[in-house]
């Protein structure tokens, strides 16, 4: 089968083109480094079938980070039949450098000039005929988000992959300075720029990175973000999902199971003691409730807001603002992006640490995220458990985690040899998010959550029931009882929850509900759960990203941090310290 690679600079819209061509949805955002691995898709034009690969963005074929290495390796190893080189037409000069590098390798190439609409707005005019003439290849103007130009692209792909009309560029090999000089010539021939006054958005762009206005904007963004996430989440729970569960689903499923399955092990696993009880822990009662009526609403609101901030282009600016502080923690500003993703789910956060250059930085970033960034699933349950006692308890948990983040970062920065590299990246322009794309992205992430959460939560409930049945839980409780009561001030039963934390943090946190803990005990238990151990999904990604050895170090660190923090919190809250 023919193979096509989508290549181009970071943040030019390759993933949008990819989705348009293949129908495969991939996460797209407005910042460099959204795609860190590659996604494969399939395109069928009539009987002509081919594979399309969405390659991470790169400025050149000589890489400076892991994501760019992926791009280079794919280019040289995959032996593509066709390259679709996506360019941001508003920044032709820089984009053409990679184009020239690609063209000199003599692989059939199509040039797609994306962001054609933005160029018009900015007063940039490009003479397509002349550009085609100089490069000797077909050049297609496009607005990938709206689909403009994609049809032309498909026609050309069809022609070339059917071995019709293959043209190679006749541009000779050049060294770097010749390349830049040639690009200069091309631009003076094909491009005209009218001067325009900066728009309001452009003024806002500058204000968000300037020291004073930047910090104020960051605080406002943070405040609004939290308000909206909690607002949407609570609304969905109180007015839609809770009523649905308690009035319709719960009674229905409970009576259905009661009427069809005799009491016993299976009955208990399915519905526990019935939908009315927090303690029931049946697959179809508490399991479904926790996922759909406690966690899902917050996942939905979080990813909608995150998607908005991503597509708007705010996150890289936050990265610039926080760069100095992050350096003191052994990281650099761009680590802000994996950290923010971590508040949604630690798994994509670990993957996105690939945009960081060094091994040391990657280790610090993954460790700090695993320890002190609770995922939205866990946050949702924490809000559910402690919200009724007042916001101060939730602040206490997050405050503790923030202190841990800073203290651990400083220690790791001090202990590990080396320095974090300096940041150097493009700050994308602000763009008004495209609603359809934003909703699609939110839906993809929510779907991803459900696909991952449902099996693990079910498995968890099953496992805990079986472990009880064979007496393992009882033995563990006895063994760990001194730690629980003397150090953490928690009852023995909380051990179940801590063990479940290895499988899923949301379910584990929910298991604290029936224990009748005081708010202070809940604070200790939630904090220990958040810090103690990565959930199994994160665990697997961690091994892949940093290797078994570093992962073991991280886990030992996590367990000790969890115990120490839990003990100190317990002592402080009980007035003993």
């Amino acid at each position, binding site marked *: 089968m023919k193979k096509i690679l989508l290549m181009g600079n970071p943040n030019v819209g390759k993933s949008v083109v990819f989705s348009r061509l293949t129908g495969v949805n991939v996460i797209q955002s407005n910042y460099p480094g959204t795609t860190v691995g590659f996604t494969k898709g399939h395109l069928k034009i009539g009987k002509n079938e081919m594979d399309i690969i969405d390659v991470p963005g790169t400025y050149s074929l000589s890489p400076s980070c892991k994501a760019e290495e992926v791009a280079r390796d794919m280019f040289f190893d995959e032996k593509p039949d066709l390259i679709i080189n996506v360019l941001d037409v508003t920044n032709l000069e820089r984009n053409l450098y990679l184009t020239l590098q690609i063209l000199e390798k003599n692989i059939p190439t199509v040039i797609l000039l994306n962001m054609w609409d933005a160029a018009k707005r900015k007063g940039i005019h490009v003479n397509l005929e002349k550009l085609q003439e100089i490069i000797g290849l077909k050049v297609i103007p496009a607005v990938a988000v709206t689909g403009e130009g994609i049809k032309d692209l498909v026609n050309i792909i069809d022609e070339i992959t059917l071995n019709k009309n293959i043209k190679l560029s006749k541009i000779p090999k050049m060294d770097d300075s010749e390349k830049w000089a040639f690009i200069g010539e091309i631009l003076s021939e094909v491009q005209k720029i009218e001067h325009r006054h900066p728009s309001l958005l452009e003024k806002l762009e500058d204000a968000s*990175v300037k020291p004073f206005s930047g910090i104020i904007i960051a605080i406002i963004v943070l405040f609004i973000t939290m308000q909206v996430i909690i607002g949407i989440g609570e609304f969905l729970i109180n007015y839609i999902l809770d009523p649905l569960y308690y009035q319709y689903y719960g009674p229905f499923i409970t009576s259905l199971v009661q009427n069809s399955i005799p009491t016993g092990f299976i009955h208990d696993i399915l519905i526990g003691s019935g939908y009315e009880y927090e303690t029931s822990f049946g697959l179809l009662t508490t399991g479904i409730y926790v996922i759909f009526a406690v966690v899902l609403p917050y996942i939905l609101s979080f990813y909608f807001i995150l998607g908005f901030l991503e597509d708007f282009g705010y996150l890289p600016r936050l990265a610039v603002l926080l760069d100095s502080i992050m350096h003191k923690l052994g990281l650099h500003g761009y680590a802000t992006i994996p950290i923010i993703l971590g508040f949604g789910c630690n798994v994509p956060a670990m993957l996105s640490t690939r945009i960081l250059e060094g091994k040391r930085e990657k280790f610090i970033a993954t460790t700090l995220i695993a320890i002190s960034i609770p995922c939205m699933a866990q946050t949702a349950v924490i809000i559910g458990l402690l919200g009724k006692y007042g916001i101060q308890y939730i602040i206490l948990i997050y405050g503790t985690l923030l202190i841990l983040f800073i203290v651990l970062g400083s220690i790791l920065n001090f202990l590990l040899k080396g320095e974090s590299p300096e940041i*150097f990246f493009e700050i994308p322009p602000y763009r008004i998010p495209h609603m359809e794309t934003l909703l699609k992205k939110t839906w993809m992430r929510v779907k991803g959550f459900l696909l991952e959460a449902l099996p693990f939560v079910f498995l968890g409930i099953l496992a805990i029931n079986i472990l009880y049945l064979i007496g393992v839980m009882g033995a563990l409780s006895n063994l760990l009882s001194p730690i629980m009561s003397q150090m953490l001030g928690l009852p023995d039963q909380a051990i179940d929850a801590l063990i479940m934390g290895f499988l899923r943090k949301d379910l584990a946190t929910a298991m604290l509900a029936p224990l009748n803990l005081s708010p202070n005990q809940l604070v200790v238990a939630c904090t220990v759960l958040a810090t103690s151990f990565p959930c199994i999904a994160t665990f697997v990604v961690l091994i892949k990203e940093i290797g078994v050895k570093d992962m073991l170090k991280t886990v030992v660190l996590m367990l000790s941090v969890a115990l120490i923090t839990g003990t100190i919190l317990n002592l402080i809250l009980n007035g003993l310290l």
Partner: protein
Amino acid sequence: MITLVELKNGKNATIKKIEGGPGLKNRLEVMNLREGKRIRKTCSAPLHGPVVLEIDGFKMAIGRGMAKKVWVEEI
């Protein structure tokens, strides 16, 4: 000639020289930060943070250490 760090906020300048090894030079160059290019310094981020600058309407952030190696002449 002054370095990017010394250049005042809001000023335009032309890049005259980039110090440092071929690795750094190449990294800056592929992002279009090269000798002869006109730039505008937007600001420095708080707490001695990175320098934010604009080339052809595109913004980028560059760490202070790197910015010290970029020599410019104010226009």
